[in-house]
């Protein structure tokens, strides 16, 4: 059949222009794991987009309660953003350290990431607690419901990320840089960076646009 001809042409055409490239077989475990985790992250982003959509629909529905401009504190949000963006950088450093099998820099990078994550969570928690204390809890209006859910959902993800981070540090401590541990570390890094991307969305849509109104 024509298949042998196709295979022949594939060799003649290293840039794969215009011919069917012979599929080499199943991908390696590392690629499969990372790919699957990417697909999961995409689904997670779809989930977030629903909360974004709900916020977009409901942000004007204050039911006589406060609007975004009245309750958002730019300074806190700025610190939160810096913490999270920095933590993505340190997480990247930890990944590199893992790739070159350097335990010290790995632990240091992960520890800093953890501390930055926790600072972020503490600020967010205080913001929430303060709003609730002033009577602006999520039950006050549809706007506040969607605000607390969207930002809280991101916060929950960060909390899970911190738990995962500690588990990864413990795994490297107990098992060293084994192939499966490294695969998990790669997934964790993807997760942590994805949270950063989502935070950029939260920061822009909720806080920047919300304060402008």
């Amino acid at each position, binding site marked *: *059949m024509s*298949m*042998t001809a196709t295979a022949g042409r594939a060799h003649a055409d290293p840039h794969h222009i215009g011919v*069917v*490239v*012979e*599929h*080499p*077989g*199943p*991908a390696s475990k590392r*690629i*499969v794991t990372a*790919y*699957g985790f990417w*697909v*999961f992250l*995409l*689904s*997670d982003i*779809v*989930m977030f987009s*629903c*909360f974004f*959509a*709900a916020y977009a*629909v*409901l942000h004007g*529905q*204050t*039911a006589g309660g406060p609007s975004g401009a009245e309750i958002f504190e730019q300074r806190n949000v700025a610190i939160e953003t810096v913490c999270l963006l920095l933590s993505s950088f340190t997480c990247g450093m930890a990944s590199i350290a893992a790739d070159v099998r350097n335990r010290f820099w790995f632990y240091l990078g992960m520890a800093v990431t953890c501390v930055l994550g926790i600072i972020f969570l503490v600020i967010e928690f205080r913001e929430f607690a303060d709003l609730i204390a002033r009577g602006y809890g*999520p*039950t*006050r*209006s*549809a*706007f506040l*419901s*969607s605000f*607390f*859910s969207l930002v809280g959902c991101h916060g929950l993800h960060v909390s899970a990320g911190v*738990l995962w981070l500690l*588990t990864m540090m413990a*795994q490297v401590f*107990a*098992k060293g840089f084994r192939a*499966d541990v490294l695969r*998990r570390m790669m997934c964790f890094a993807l997760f942590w960076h994805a949270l950063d991307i989502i935070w950029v969305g939260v920061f822009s849509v909720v806080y920047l646009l919300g304060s402008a109104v």
Partner: protein
Amino acid sequence: MLGKLDWSAIPFDQPIPLVAGAVVLVAILGVLIWVVVKGHLPYLWHEWITSVDHKRIGVMYILLASVMLLRGGSDAIMMRIQQAIAYQSQGYLPPEHYNQIFSAHGTIMIFFVAMPFVIGLMNLVVPLQLGVRDVAFPTLNSVGFWLTATGALLVNLSLVIGEFARTGWLAFPPLSGLSYSPGVGVDYYAWSLQISGVGTLVAGINLVTTVLKLRTKGMNYLRMPMFCWTTLASNLLIVAAFPILTATLAMLLLDRYLGFHFFTNEAGGNVMMFMNLIWAWGHPEVYILVLPAFGIFSEVVSTFSGKALFGYRSMVLATMAICVISFMVWLHHFFTMGAGPDVNAIFGIASMIIAIPTGVKIYNWLFTMYGGRIRFATPMLWSVGFMVTFIIGGLTGVLVAVPPADFMLHNSMFLVAHFHNVIIGGVLFGAFAGFEYWFPKAFGFRLDERWGKLAFWFTFLGFYVTFMPLYIAGMLGMTRRLQHYDVAAWRPWMIVAAFGMAVLTIGVICQIIQLVVSIRNREALRDRTGDPWDGRSLEWATSSPPPVFNFAFHPDVRGEDAYWDMKARAQQQSLGHEKPEYHDIEMPRNSPTGFICAFFATIMGFALIWHIWWMVILGGIGAFATFVVFAWRDHDEYVIPAEEVARIDRVNIEERRSLVSMAGAI
């Protein structure tokens, strides 16, 4: 201590659920005792419950779907009887109970019958068709299955402890909000779907990754069997749509549990947002179910016509077109809710456009049959029955996609008839075709043809007798979800529909008999070659049932219809000159992770439904601990030595050689 749970949760005053629950309980206990006494428990635990083999998990999915089909079917029987006798009377079911029945029927049939059935078939077949050893994430696969089972268990628990939602299968607020549904019914609904939804998402991620990243050597995208393509499309839809369901139900639960205002009537909540969100998931869901069925029909029609699938590339294109367009039509589910004529027109046209790729598919199947040497085995009967039935369902679908017509027909029995027409005629017929077609692959023996054909004819005729009258009743103005009615003109059609339900039931009984008869005669029905239908794709290239590693070495694919091609080449070359070189195979170890996860998820779900907070925390800690313990294990694979692989494979090759030489002699 026990939250909202007390003795009043058990409906001592309602005999029907109590008796049904007692019967089920006795049956389950009986099976459990039988299993323990006969000493089957270790076998079940090691070979099935903790198995991470995609074939075993697929079988368990289908088993779950079959059991739930009986449950959802008995709900259907009860509803048909009620509507047949409830003319100017209350019927035999109290309204409260009737509302629970139709909500449970819809929920169960979609989430716990159709979904597990197609996911089970995809799990069973796709890695075999791709020529690989397993899915991308075997342990996750087991977790996904057991979480689905958890959801099913919670729904059935509501039969005896507490109540189920009385809100219809999509729990529209504000009816499903706390003020109108203060009981635990909606909570049962929401938590069981949340938990099983996670399971479905996991299965979706797994299968997408499997199709995209795990294909045997030479299996280019345009050489994949059609079923792999529809699996890919369907699972892409799962990955894109199920998170929407998760988010929507989370919002509903926040409203109910913590007094949020997403969908309430007060404080700025927006009910229409629920409609948009739930149907943005709900419409793709229909295609998540029907696309794999389309794939099954493609395989079956091509195999039993003895021809390659007609218009393979147009079929791929049609599949992916449906995959994309299915996300653009959700609003046709609420044409009548005031979106305005412009929006309605756009969504009406978008809805009708789906008929084009679907039509392409129908013609491709017809042209595949044209000029072929057709064998009317049971799977083929289901496929032809599907083509006739689905065209009717599709046409009525285009009819209700016309907004003005929809204003007349929406929420009527016409609509009920339409979606049963496509779901039964499309998904269920597809599931049965796939069941008959791949059963010998899973178990090593064929199913009895005589009973299979009887089952087909009773189900096929029963379907028409049941649902065609509903179209007419809808035209006569009968709305759905009626507990009783006073219009004389509707009654005859309800009685005919109830009669049709009886015929359908005979079809189901035939199928059960078929299974029993086939198991009894399994030696006579044994399939030694692994290729009972003279198949075309790679799942037939291995023995039936396949060894745990599926293929001794990855098959080398040179074109479409990989196995057909191999058989043809083998005949020409008189087969067997090459001695294959065997290598050690690494396979994932069994793991109880999925079962334990589901155990804690069940505890957590039940505790959440009844507001038993300490138990929620217990379940949460347990689930996290399971996760860590799983992540901590050191040996997640075991090795099958090359000699063992060679021994198993040689038997298969001998059988196959005799088959090919026989075919050559003919």
